[in-house]
């Protein structure tokens, strides 16, 4: 697995969220791909424990449609993000799990005319598809998952 290609993929994914272009972003996921934002530190279980987000492609499809709907009042506000990605670590490839890539990400979100900062540890599980990757799972561990959260209408 080429580290440079993995980094390039992470930057490209982040760029789609920064703009944001959810239509293109959703297509980075495998058909059985998952986006997970746990609601507790070191959360092990996405099904028997609550999460902020645990979306399969069904929910991603609904979210991306909702995101651009003209009557979504929470989405009338501009939302833009700026991801900075660092501390990238690539684990050896696993036949079943794909390639696991962890990174630290600081995401500034502009929403409701305010800037907010999210600090996260992000874990991608990627599978190779042709010359590119597909995301099997993207897990976003906030530094403060159990703190009261503000409305967030975009994936980090």
């Amino acid at each position, binding site marked *: 697995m080429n580290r440079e290609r993995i980094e390039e993929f992470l930057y490209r994914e982040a760029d789609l969220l920064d703009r944001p272009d959810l239509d293109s972003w959703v297509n980075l996921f495998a058909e059985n791909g998952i986006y997970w934002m746990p609601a*507790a530190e070191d959360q092990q279980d996405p099904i028997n424990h609550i999460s902020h987000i645990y979306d399969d492609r069904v929910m991603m499809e609904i979210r991306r449609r909702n995101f651009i709907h003209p009557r979504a009042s929470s989405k009338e506000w501009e939302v833009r993000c700026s991801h900075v990605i660092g501390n990238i670590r690539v684990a050896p490839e696993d036949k079943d799990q794909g390639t696991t890539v962890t990174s630290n990400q600081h995401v500034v979100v502009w929403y409701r005319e305010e800037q907010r900062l999210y600090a996260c540890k992000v874990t991608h599980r990627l599978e190779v598809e042709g010359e590119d990757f597909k995301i099997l799972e993207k897990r976003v561990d906030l530094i403060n998952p159990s703190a009261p*959260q503000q*409305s967030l209408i975009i994936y980090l």
Partner: protein
Amino acid sequence: MTSVPTGDFSQVVTPTRVHRSLYTDPDLFELEMTRIWGQAWIFIGHESQVPNTGDYFTTNINHNIPVVMVRDKSGTVQVLHNRCGHKGAKVVEARSGNARGAFRCSYHGWSYRHDGSLLKVPNEAGYDGTGFDSANPCYSMQPLAQAESYRGFVFATLSPNAPDLKTWMGGARDCFDNLCDRAPEGEVEVAGGVLRYEHQCNWKFILENLNDTMHPMVVHESIVKAAESYLDSLPEDAVEQRKEAEIIPPFGASYEKFEASGITGFPFGHHYDGGKTSIHADYSVDPEYHAAMVAAYGEERTREIYSFNTHNVLFYPSLTIKCAVQNIRVIRPISVDRFIVETWSFRLKGAPDSMLQRTLLYSRLINSAMGMVGPDDLEVYRRAQEGLASPSNEWVEFHRQYGKDEQLEDRTVGGGTSDLDMRTQYQAWQAYMEGSIFNKVEKT
């Protein structure tokens, strides 16, 4: 706290309107904290959060008074003021945990039994002959004026004058029974963690919104359309995808459907919508769960339990529950324009794991700060909070179906799109604020 001054709030509350200052005035907010939150039974937690001796759970009973719920040696769940009898430091800081032998203050090491009584003062000889009496309850972690639980749900009040919990709940108590009866073993327990959601607006907006059935088709139109457009795009055989997406469209139910669900109000500001039917009535029943229910209750009683179908039930002012979904939301004000909502989910004892998983799916999609329903609700509350700064109209109105509510012996019933839920809340608001709320209460 024991005597609430009387006063006249008819200048800001009428049967069909409230003054905008109820949402924007910091002084009124402070009065609400002592007169409403300082008198009403406030939801603290569930007994299943403290299963063993010394297990504790901390929260505030209003915007700033810290309390701790703890199971003492006798097995009783106590609700204590979280304040050291010495210099006043908060004794317990963690959200939850186990205090093995005793609570110990981190300042001078005073320690307390799980019932709050003072256990030990270090180097106590220095108090000899000073008039200090370690047996005086003021030096303990004092219990709240009253604490009681109903089917595991623990409430406490700062007021010694509040009627007992059952009387205060009135007919809305049926909803706790229904929630627990939906468990084959007749009990529920907290499971699967908590979501905390910060709201930048007055705490009363969410209470008004719970059974405001005129808002969903407007506020939640986009997510309903998004789900429907996705469902339309699916091939016929996409059964699993359909099942998952179908949790959303009921939020766009028609005015007629909501009207048919009806609203029921009770003394002390409680109310629910639904009863015979609600937007949760058409969820399919898990066959394994149904079999466990029938084995426990028999077919007829099982049907009866399912058929009591409410949407949101409010125990004014701190708790709203969803019996059919098995989650609750706990409200805690912070300031006049800020509050926190906590969403807790429950396991039905004796039911398959799929039931808890469904509850958590619901909580995640609907109640998360990153969900697709909550942020649109909060957006409109915030617009109301900002719009009410305008002096163009001093009043917020709730006339819908006024005069058509039917007063029964212990409750008021009306159409599902009636504003009777708002009228019910503000009658209680006024009586709490005027100090007359517990006059003429007959105990059950």
